[in-house]
């Protein structure tokens, strides 16, 4: 009976943890060869959480948000304000704070936005994110404006990291984030494979029928929205500490575009998509940064992916892996 719930490659926990383990193992070696690439891996590991949250909303519930940067901003500025105004350095507290602030904001906005069509949702989120960005930008005497908030090195378990060399410091950041990501991946995996998760997929596929089997589609969407906001907020707090600078850029529409693109690239229909997407995106980004028409590339890629390979890289990988498995069984 439980056989029916068996997962294909990418949707199972194992493939996700294996990928994470591989990255965790090769990271120190990569860093030793090139600290720059080590930092890119640091970006990669940081953004998985936000992309997972985004995909809960998009891949599993069918709600595309062009304003996910809003919650990244909330998380980042929560960490920033906690440091600037309360002198709090502890990364654990930053994360707890951003969970709280993201949840509250998501509840307020979610109550408004989940009752309408998915098109409204997409554009409204873009617009509201811009509204928040304009607030961060204009109230510069609170937020630091475009100069931003400079952060000191975070403390972990109450221990200051000020006196360490940069390499050790970055290693600590990387493994702390990997640890956090592992927990959050496991949590998200349980969520999408729970009755709630299947309900979300039903709402995604056919909201009228979902309503007619008695599902309160608005309440379910609201829950998904809040969870995805919390995930994005956590990444925001992490980014604030990784860059040690919080500027309005993190809340700008191009950051939302980054989230959309990276998730699409990795694959929105398979659980491992956001993991793959985060790393591949950041690798491409560091190459493409030199080629300044990066938005043109992203835009063209988004259109190409939608038309040609909507399942993203994860889908391609799955087809590859499944074909190996099958050829092994049948004998070629």
């Amino acid at each position: 009976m439980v056989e029916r719930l068996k997962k294909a490659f990418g949707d199972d926990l194992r493939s996700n943890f294996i990928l994470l383990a591989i990255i965790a193992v090769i990271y120190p070696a990569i860093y030793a060869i090139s600290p720059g690439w080590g930092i890119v891996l640091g970006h990669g590991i940081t953004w998985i959480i936000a992309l997972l949250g985004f995909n809960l909303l998009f891949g599993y519930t069918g709600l595309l948000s062009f304003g996910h940067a809003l919650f990244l901003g909330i998380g980042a500025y929560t960490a920033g304000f906690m440091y600037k105004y309360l002198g709090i350095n502890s990364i654990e507290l930053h994360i707890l704070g951003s969970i709280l602030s993201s949840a509250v904001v998501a509840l307020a906005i979610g109550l408004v936005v989940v009752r309408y069509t998915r098109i409204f949702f997409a554009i409204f989120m873009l617009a509201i994110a811009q509204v928040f960005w304009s607030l961060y930008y204009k109230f510069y005497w609170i937020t630091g404006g475009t100069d931003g908030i400079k952060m000191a090195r975070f403390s972990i378990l109450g221990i200051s990291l000020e006196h360490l060399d940069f390499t050790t410091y970055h290693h600590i950041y990387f493994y702390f984030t990997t640890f956090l990501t592992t927990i959050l991946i496991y949590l998200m995996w349980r969520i999408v494979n729970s009755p709630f998760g299947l309900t979300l997929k039903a709402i995604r596929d056919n909201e009228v029928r979902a309503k007619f089997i008695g599902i309160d589609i608005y309440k379910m969407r609201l829950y998904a929205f809040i969870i995805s906001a919390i995930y994005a907020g956590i990444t925001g707090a992490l980014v604030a500490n990784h860059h040690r600078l919080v500027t309005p850029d993190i809340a700008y529409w191009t950051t939302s575009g980054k989230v959309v693109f990276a998730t699409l690239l990795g694959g929105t229909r398979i659980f491992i998509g956001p993991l793959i997407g985060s790393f591949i995106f950041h690798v491409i980004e560091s190459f493409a940064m030199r080629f300044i028409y990066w938005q043109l590339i992203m835009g063209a890629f988004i259109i190409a992916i939608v038309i040609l390979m909507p399942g993203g890289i994860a889908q391609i990988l799955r087809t590859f892996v499944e074909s190996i498995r099958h050829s092994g069984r049948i004998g070629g």
Partner: protein
Amino acid sequence: MIELGEVVVRIYNIFFGTSVLFLIAVGLNLIYGVMRIVNLTHPAFFTLGCYTVAGLGVGIVISLLGTSLTPLLIIPPLIAALIVVIASLIVFPLFIYMSGKGDEVQLLVTYGLLLIFEDVFRLIWGVEPLRASQAYEMAGSLIVGEYLIPVYNIYVILSALILVLLLWLLLFKTKIGILIRASSMDIEMTAALGADVKKVLLVTVLLAGFLAGLGGGLYLPSASVMLGMSVELLVLAFVVVVIGGLGSFLGSFVGSFIVSVLRTITLMLFPELELALIYIVAILILTFKPEGLGGGRKW
């Protein structure tokens, strides 16, 4: 105390803002009405119109016809409209691909185009804001109390009025206009009655592009154009369409007017909260009158 001059200027501001926003909103509503596609790229077409005039149109006219005013009033906006119509033509196959597919396809493709356009602007015209207001200074300004109202901006308001009239005539008094309106009500029925649906779609997209390009071309001399403007306009156009009603011609006007009023008020009192306050009002209107004040479709 508020003096008469200030009142006149505020009223002028409201009408000017209404004119500009209307030219964007009406194109958005046209495409949604007929194709059921919310075209996120539409504001980028308006911006393209602005860039064309600033970076190309004014220069061409001056070098060919000198600096006299009249050709500058008419030719650059038309050049802008032409360029945007051509751009719409190039993008049209994507529109055909999108219609009938799911929401995400439409959203992602038009969003991708938005990103592409932003970098195309940067590629062709660079990162600095562009203006062309110098060439139009000869039109002079009206002195109202302590304020100056550029005569050119009055011209923009009048042009918008004429365009609304022409558009109304087109939509309500010509055969193709009736086909467009019929398609926006029920496209299958219109097709069943023998209309060439692809032609109607093409005309709609080109018309929307024409309005966007013309609008951008008219607008630019009064201000400047810069990167990121497309998204700012999208944010404003969206709230116009929410307040006025999605797919409604009247709503395009009502929404533009109300947003202009709100902008003028908030810029007087709480300038930093301008966008936030407009959106709060929009949310309130949405909650109590979901079809908007001009009567539109469900969101």
